[in-house]
């Protein structure tokens, strides 16, 4: 392998390669996938001079450590965390030069959940259906990183943005998710629909890239029959038999048989990607645009 590569010293709890995902294949059972906090992924790509579709690393909670075989420009963003190069503190949210053989340590998130690491040239693992994203539900794309994984890098872009620090939204203390009701709100009692849009929920620790699970009042069904399996969109709030809403994130299944009480505005999902377990959640009913 050429010197334009990165070896993984510490993979962390869950670190995956992500880009903008592979939409357009839902009819084959392929989830869209892609970075959960897409604005954060786009920002770190911009900081290192990458095109917006370059693949970055998405870490979960505990960060990761990387050793580039060549000098690279990197930027770390998303969930704030300490950044070190060979043990010395380095900036978060700004472009940063890492010498060949040095260890870039992306520390545990101080706030939020998912940190993004862009490297100049991007991670150039073999694309699957036009995307380099790891899809945990479908098992497409590269497997999650393990210690010792070597990732090939693309050619260094001509230049990077000159900034001292790039502002990024703070992870939410309370997650407010605007939701348009339907298509299956009539499968729930009026009291359940009221509870859904007025009561407090919390982010469940069982959340993952497939769905943001919630804890809170169980939503009672008005119809008890089986719904025939139907297509699912990003942000769909599916209610399984336990009555606790699940918000579908990037790796969600493309069809499903539990009723969808509402759909979260996609613009609110990046914050959902950063909400740690226990974060209060409110579903705010909004009119369809």
């Amino acid at each position, binding site marked *: 392998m050429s010197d334009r590569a990165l070896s993984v010293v510490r993979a962390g709890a869950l670190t995956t390669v992500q880009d903008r995902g592979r939409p*357009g294949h839902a009819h084959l059972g392929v989830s869209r996938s892609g970075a959960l906090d897409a604005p954060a992924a786009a920002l770190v790509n911009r900081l290192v001079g990458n095109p917006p579709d370059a693949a970055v690393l998405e870490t979960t909670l505990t960060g990761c450590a990387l050793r580039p075989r060549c000098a690279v420009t990197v930027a770390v963003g998303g969930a704030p965390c300490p950044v070190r190069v060979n043990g010395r503190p380095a900036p978060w949210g700004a472009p940063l030069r890492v010498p060949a053989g040095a260890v870039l340590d992306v520390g545990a998130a101080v706030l939020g959940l998912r940190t993004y690491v862009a490297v100049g040239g991007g991670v150039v693992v073999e694309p699957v259906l036009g995307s380099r994203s790891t899809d945990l539900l479908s098992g497409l794309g590269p497997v999650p990183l393990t210690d010792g994984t070597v990732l090939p890098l693309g050619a260094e872009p001509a230049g990077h943005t000159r900034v001292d620090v790039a502002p990024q939204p703070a992870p939410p203390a309370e997650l407010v998710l605007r939701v348009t009701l339907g298509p299956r709100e009539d499968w729930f009692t009026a009291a359940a629909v009221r509870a859904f849009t007025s009561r407090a929920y919390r982010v469940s620790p069982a959340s993952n890239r497939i769905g943001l699970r919630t804890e809170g009042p169980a939503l009672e069904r008005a119809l008890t029959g089986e719904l025939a*399996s139907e*297509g699912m969109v990003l942000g769909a709030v599916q209610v399984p038999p336990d009555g606790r809403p699940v918000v579908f994130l990037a790796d969600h299944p493309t069809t499903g048989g539990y009723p969808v009480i509402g759909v*979260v505005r996609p613009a609110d999902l990046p914050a959902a990607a950063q909400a740690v377990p226990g974060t209060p959640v409110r579903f705010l009913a909004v009119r369809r645009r």
Partner: protein
Amino acid sequence: MSRRVLPVGDDALVVELTSGAEAEALHAELLRRRAAGLLTVREIVPAARTVLLDGLADPVRWIAELTTAEIPPAPARAGEVVELPVRYDGPDLADVAAHWGVGEEEVVRIHAGVEFRVAFCGFAPGFGYLTGLPEGYDVPRRATPRTSVPAGAVALAGPYTGVYPRSSPGGWQLIGTTDAVLWDHTRVPAALLSPGTRVRFVPTARPGAAGGGGAAG
């Protein structure tokens, strides 16, 4: 007419039809319109009795159009029938035979005698929900799903037949095994089965299964 069109979020619609055949017809018509440049949409996802249109620029305009549009029956699918060689050796073959009230050999004869169509996909890349079994041949899911179903398992649930593209948990009744590769991302197309594909299962030898004491090999 009882077709309903329900908004899903801000830029998607789900069209609810009264049968799987109608859903297939609408899916075919939507693909035709998209190919003709009459419809701009990111995803068209057929399912059991619905079709989802996701990523529509102007969903409101399409509500009226989809509610009233005349939908021609799905055109006969051109192209070949995909033949999947199967060993009917699944651990649930006897249970399925009991549900159908026939012998195991009859299950094979019935299942291999049907031309199936992929009504829709989901669950995993390359997993098709195949319809074609006559009414009365529904089977329930297993009460306790298996934690691991091997790749290539040919399975039944409800009115559908499916083949597991890769090893995964699953609650369908397993009746056989195929060596066919359902999904290969290095192949074009990656999925062997996509909505509308015609499929036949072709029985291969079942060593030791035929009455009369199993052939060698």
